[in-house]
């Protein structure tokens, strides 16, 4: 499982200068990589390019040696979970929105029982939240931890984490690491957090 960025460049419409330029990176299975950089340097954009939500202007991204588009992109999306900085799962109770991604054909087999999900929720400090609670009424930190639990249960080969610890305390961060860091995965995270940077095997500056 290899992900390769070669001479990648991207410029947003109506912007004169590129937000990403001459970006090279090779990511192998087991890599835990932190993308570091100030706000507005293109960390989130890099994830959007990877997921095919934007089309790069220069260079290439390959997955298993093939350009990340069409069937390869579909295959990549099926092997990935992306945790945005502010997770929006929509309207509904925690139970409804948490289980929704497990209705997808690709994820059906991974659907956890309520008791299994509760064990992970407790571990992440979400014990006090009822399944009937409105997801939108949860705090940013709570939503972030629900997202972490989703990443754990979806159990994909590639994790794209956008500021995964921005609303978490030190204890929660340790737990996130324990839950998500596995040797057989690729973990790419965009972060400012120095503690998180120390946990990664490689740091790339944008």
């Amino acid at each position, binding site marked *: 499982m290899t992900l390769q960025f070669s001479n990648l460049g991207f410029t947003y419409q109506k912007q004169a200068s590129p937000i990403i330029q001459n970006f090279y990176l090779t990511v192998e299975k087991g890599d835990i990589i932190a993308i570091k950089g100030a706000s507005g340097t293109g960390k989130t954009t890099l994830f959007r390019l990877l997921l095919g939500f934007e089309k790069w202007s220069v260079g290439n991204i390959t997955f298993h040696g093939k350009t990340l588009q069409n069937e390869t992109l579909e295959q990549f999306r099926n092997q990935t*979970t992306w945790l*945005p900085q*502010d*997770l929006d799962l929509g309207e509904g109770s925690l139970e409804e929105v948490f289980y929704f991604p497990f209705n*997808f*054909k690709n*994820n059906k087999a991974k659907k956890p029982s309520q008791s299994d999900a509760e064990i992970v929720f407790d571990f992440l400090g979400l014990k006090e939240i009822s399944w009937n609670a409105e997801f939108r009424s949860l705090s940013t930190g709570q939503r972030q931890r629900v997202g972490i639990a989703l990443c754990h249960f979806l159990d994909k080969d590639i994790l794209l984490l956008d500021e995964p610890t921005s609303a978490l305390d030190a204890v929660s961060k340790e737990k996130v690491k324990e839950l998500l860091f596995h040797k057989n995965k690729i973990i790419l995270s965009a972060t400012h957090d120095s503690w998180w940077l120390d946990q990664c095997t490689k740091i790339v500056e944008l």
Partner: protein
Amino acid sequence: MSISDLHWGQLALGLLILVIPLYILWKFKTDLISKTLIAVARMILQLVFVGYYLEYLFKYDNPWVNLAWIFVMVLVADFATLDRSELKRKKGLFISVFAATFIGLLLIDFFFLQFIIQLPNIMEAQYLIPITGMILGNCLRGNIIGINDFYYNLTQHQERYCFFLASGATKKEALFPFFRTALKKSINPTLASMATIGLVSLPGMMTGQMLSGSSPLIAIKYQIMIMLAIFSGTLLCVYWGILFSQRFVFDIQDNFDKSILKENK
């Protein structure tokens, strides 16, 4: 029992009642006097035109002319849907909404006229045109609410759609919650009116039938039928409208093309 016809003079006299609302609007400086007069004038002109036209249509009663009239009605409704929504008048969207409404209407018409009323000729203008008009009016409202809500929500919550795609969803699976919300919103007004019909208000069609001499028991049967037709027709047209239009607003990588929205919202 037959209805007593109104003379044009009587109708003109009826306009005198407008003095009351116009006075209230003037007293509260609402700036709605000219708008009201224009709306009343338009209403009269449009209805007079339709009245004469339908008189001819009912007399002539040619199936092709009837079908052509429905075609024109759907075409006007299609323009109105896109103009009153946040969507641009793009060819693909226009054709999708038109096809969804036209096919949906004909299907509902066919079911009720052929199997329920059991007309010997389902293209008979006296039945086909008013029933289609009643369903279409409600489909128009449903389409404006439903299609607009679907694309507006998708723009507002694009990150959510992207999150689902990036979690292994197909486009169809990722759009499911947006579909659900749009369908619920579009059908809510019809559901509310079905829940209160007969208690809070007497529906226009039933009132019209009773005024023209029908027994209330016949009138309610037609009203029940038309409410079922409106409910099913609206939901079907909105569902197909969204389904057909999707073909034109996503790229090969399932990304939503925001340029279909007016002023690039």
